[in-house]
């Protein structure tokens, strides 16, 4: 009680709700803090922007989530695995599932990875660095106002993916949160 009062006095001119937040956040902050670009196995970050007719999506995932290892592919089997992962990541319509009514066409699907590289490039690479795979999708939507939600199809295809941390910027505002296999839809507008 005393602690509460102390905080109250400090923030007298703030709103009562802010006091509540201050109290809550003082002990819950640590659990929610995560560095901007952390490399966390099992976690994929997804950033999506809707502007005019464009929908731009960037996925960043630790390589281990999609191929099971993070070093450069050495054996033929590993190379085949990487190629297969790249091919499935390029299936934009499966990974980023959009409402039919928005009439979106996939214009671009680029997979940027460092696991399959020629020997020369490989020499310059960091020795024991974690490897990320980045996937960039660009859709052009005829009816972007119909983009009410985005379903993420990563969970079915890559069993290592546990959660997707997303940030979305759209005319409806900024949204953020975490998706799990049980709830894999981002609601852009209610």
């Amino acid at each position, binding site marked *: 009680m005393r602690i509460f009062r102390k905080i109250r006095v400090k923030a007298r*001119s703030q709103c009562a709700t802010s006091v509540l937040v201050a109290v809550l956040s003082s002990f819950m902050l640590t659990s929610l803090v995560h560095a901007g670009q952390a490399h966390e196995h099992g976690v994929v970050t997804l950033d999506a922007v809707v502007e005019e007719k464009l929908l731009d999506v960037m996925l960043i995932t630790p390589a281990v989530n999609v191929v099971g290892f993070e070093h450069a592919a050495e054996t033929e089997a590993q190379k085949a695995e990487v190629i297969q992962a790249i091919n499935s990541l390029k299936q934009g319509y499966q990974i980023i599932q959009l409402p039919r009514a928005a009439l979106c066409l996939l214009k671009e699907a680029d997979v940027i990875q460092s696991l399959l590289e020629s020997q020369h490039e490989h020499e310059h690479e960091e020795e024991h660095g974690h490897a990320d795979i980045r996937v960039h999708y660009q859709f052009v939507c005829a009816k972007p106002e119909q983009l009410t939600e985005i379903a993420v199809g990563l969970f079915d295809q890559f069993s290592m993916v546990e959660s997707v941390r997303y940030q979305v910027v759209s005319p409806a505002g900024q949204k953020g949160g975490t998706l799990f296999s049980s709830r894999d839809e981002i609601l852009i507008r209610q």
Partner: protein
Amino acid sequence: MLFNVALASSWSRRHTLFFIVLTIALSVALLIAVEKIRTEVRDSFNRSVSGTDLIVGARGGELQLILYSIFHIGQASNNISWESFELINSNKNVAWAVPISLGDSHKGFRVVGTSSGFFTHYQTGQQQSLLFQKGKAFNDLFDAVIGADVARQLGYQVGSRLTLSHGVGSASFSQHDDRPFSVAGVLRSTGTPVDQSVFISSEAIVAIHDGWQSGSRIPGQQISVEEVRKKVLQPKELTAILLGMKSKLSTFHLQRQINNYKAEPLQAVLPGVALQQLWQLIRVAENALRIVSGCVVLAGLIGMLAVLLTSLGARRKEMAIMRAIGARPWHIITLLVFESTLVSAIGTLLGVLLSVGLLMLAQPVLETQFGLFIQSTGLSLDDAPLLAGVVLAGAATGLWPGYRAYQMTAADGLTLRC
């Protein structure tokens, strides 16, 4: 016919029923007030910032950054260098960048050092720009712009003189009394932390600390206001940066660039995303409030059940006579369900009126004391299912006493021992 009987019967016991109506009214009023305050608090949080694409600050928690830069709660973990501000400001994708420097206060209100761009770019609510109630943005080095609450509570007008204090405590010992400011403008009320802020230019923050070292004045060193004006007042540090992007498409690209910036540990957050995180935290308290008000309603209904059951003893004769003159069991049940429905409906109605009245009365207090801005005290459509639920639960409460009354046989009430 049956309803007339029920009404007349209820009327004859109006004194007892009045209190149970009152109990239900109070619990419903509480329920509605909690719902109202809950949604208004959420709205006021979401209203606090809009139109800003990114907030940049020292690396740390995302929530912490938005708490200190927008809500002025707590302290920044670190300052950021002015070079970083200029670098970000010169980025080709950035439409505007507004510096925020915190750390000083005026009579308990935070002082925000910023640029005049703040007043053109900062938006609250649904893309509402800040408006001046009186006066204009700062022009002179020692000009200040104050929020609506500051003006009201301290009785300031355009032209008022004010002295800032070092630090954020209201009883700060170090006063910047050698460099007074005058109010150049008063902002219109927004229902956000802007109302409780004093804005001065970033250069003025440097000016008031000129001749200071480690948070106190260097003894014997007196620099006059005129001398300060002549100096080059280049800020070295700032607390946070608000950014607007030319195209939203580059938002995340810049965010990643800032987060990976090697020269200084910086972080960029999307205010909308951080607000959502904040809201998830508050949801715990929010749910606790809902549970408490739900329990109060439940207590009211149980009270009604108790009253109805007790009344059965006194109404034995009434029931027996009704059964004797040919009332069927369902008549008896209807009688009691009708009564409980009537009582809970009147209680709910009264509760709604009570809550609207209370909120109207409390509105100015909530706004001045807690900064909670209630936009409308009226009932929203969202409350309708809740209220219907209360009445329905009230109606259902009548079922059990009804069944009990029917169980008591006709003979029971007609025997002489009563």
